[in-house]
């Protein structure tokens, strides 16, 4: 319905345009400001006298001789060994996503194809688990983990993140498998396949769009987690987000706020590219649960 009337500039349209523009500024400005400021010295980024210092780098030029400085990045990555946290995050995220998806795909498929009442109750339990603040579980983990001597290491955190992730993964993949017609795997079973063969040869080849979308959200959960990682990892096994939080304690006192700013930008940059590449899948994933009701 792309008629001329649709494209006319009406007052309503102009108000809508201004409103969206305002939102875009509110959404984007903090990121651009912090990204730009992370290449400046503290006197510029936190300039009480004149905010334009942060843009033009007045003190940065005075102190380092150039408009841009990598000082914050050098300090956080090398001096404070932020690279360790980056490696730990990569390990945690990779295995959490891999295991979550494996378990979730099998479970989600079973839930979508089962007609018994217990499938409903499992999904309901999943919904309740999904609603619980993650913090409520932490005190239940600490004592046994200390007792078994598994506290502080990466595998423990990975399996806990997988478990916390599971309700959401199950729900999402369950509704995805519901959309794949039952006839497909049932006809395969008529042809003499058993359930596993039907899953292997009929379902697996066509399930990737749903699995990838779900995987993106598992990635976000593992990458962004602060509650679990800050409580269950020892200092040397810290991932990025708790590392930034502990930066704040140590760095703030020594006047090295720019280290933390650089670390924050480093942690945000991958997410920026993540959205850039997977925008379509993220949007479809966000709306998948909703539009179907």
């Amino acid at each position, binding site marked *: 319905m792309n008629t001329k009337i649709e494209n006319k500039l009406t007052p309503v*349209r102009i108000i809508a345009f201004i409103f*969206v523009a305002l939102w875009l500024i509110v959404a984007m400005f903090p990121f651009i400001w912090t990204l730009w400021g992370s290449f400046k010295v503290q006197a510029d980024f936190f300039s009480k006298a004149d905010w334009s210092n942060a843009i033009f780098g007045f003190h940065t030029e005075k102190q380092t001789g150039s408009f841009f400085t990598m000082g914050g990045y050098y300090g956080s990555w090398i001096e404070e060994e932020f690279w360790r946290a980056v490696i730990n995050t990569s390990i945690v995220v990779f295995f959490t996503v891999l295991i979550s998806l494996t*378990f979730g795909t099998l479970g989600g498929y079973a839930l979508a194809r089962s007609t018994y009442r217990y499938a409903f109750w499992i999904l309901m339990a999943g919904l309740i688990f999904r609603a619980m603040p993650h913090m409520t579980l932490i*005190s239940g983990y600490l*004592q046994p983990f200390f007792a078994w001597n598994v506290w502080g290491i990466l595998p423990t955190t990975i399996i806990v993140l997988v478990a916390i992730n599971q309700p959401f993964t199950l729900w999402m993949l369950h509704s995805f498998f519901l959309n794949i017609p039952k006839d497909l795997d049932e006809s395969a079973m008529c042809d003499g396949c058993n359930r596993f063969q039907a899953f292997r040869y009929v379902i697996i080849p066509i399930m990737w769009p749903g699995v990838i979308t779900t995987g993106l959200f598992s990635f976000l959960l593992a990458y962004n987690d602060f509650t679990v990682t800050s409580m269950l990892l020892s200092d040397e096994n810290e991932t990025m987000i708790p590392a930034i939080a502990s930066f704040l304690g140590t760095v703030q006192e020594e006047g090295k706020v720019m280290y933390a700013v650089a670390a924050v930008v480093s942690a*945000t940059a991958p997410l920026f590219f993540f959205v850039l590449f997977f925008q379509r899948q993220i949007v479809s994933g966000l709306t998948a649960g909703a539009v179907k009701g």
Partner: protein
Amino acid sequence: MKHSTFLLFSLPSLSVMFLFIAIPIVSVFIQSLHIEHKQVIIVTENCDPFGCETTTSVDTEASAKLKEKAPLGKFNGFKTYSNRMHFAFDELGEAWKSSDSFTVFVKKLYNYPLYRALSFTLTYTFIVTPFVLFLGFLVAVGVNNLPKMFKGPTIFASLLPMIVTPLVGSLILFWMVDGDGVIGATLQKIFNDNSLSLKASPVLTWIMLMVYGIWHLMPFSFIVFYAGLQTVPQETIEAATIDGASKFQRIRHVVIPHLMPLAIFITLILLMDNFRVFEPIIGFRAEAHATSISWLIWNHLRESAYPLYNAAGATSMITIFGVAILLLPVLIRTWRDFKEKNKG
């Protein structure tokens, strides 16, 4: 699907949820019923020509033995729930008697950590949620009216505040509203008040946290509403236009009813997410003026020399109970739907 096949398929998923979600809840509950052993104290009296001195020391051996015998601690029943860290029944009774007006009583109530955390968590949840719904809807309508070439970039930019880690997002805003940061310093100049600080006043801290919450979650409601707007039946819109409905009337009577199920879905997710608000309080270092329930549990486990497992457990159980109350209407509705589906 046969029971055995179902079990085989779902076993990994169910066992991981059972081991790391269901059992911990039970263990948290048991923890909350126990209290740590008191250290065994030995009092010795040393007498010398100048007089007697009593010294106390911790009998580590006896303490360790006690701990080994009952690692959970001493059974304490529901006393942790009623102590001053939680519901503080005794203290409240006294406060009720001694205060001459309701406002005085409410002020006294605010001295107790659980009520303090509850008041912020609930205010946050019930202010941020409607704002996010309303503003998200407005942006979705606005973007829907944009020329096509602007839509993609707008969605990209809108997704960022939601995707970014809450702790990182709140830090980015925190540095900007800092007294020396760009927004903080500008506000100080506008109001000509060099001591103006968003961190110093409780009211401003609460507003700051809620503005952050709206900024963080608005993209979600925007995206879902925007997707919903694409599915509004065009014939109905056209019919309404022919019948003389204005743009506003079309939104009011066609679009909004169509989006109602989505609004319920968004509200549910927002309630769940807002109720667990935690990271912004760390990021904004707002704990002096605003504490949430999740923060309270974290504090019990983290801030003291020994983790207060009983206090953390009791707060966790109260939280789970609160979530159950929040979810009850949804669960009842889903159950009804399920029963009806099975009938027909």
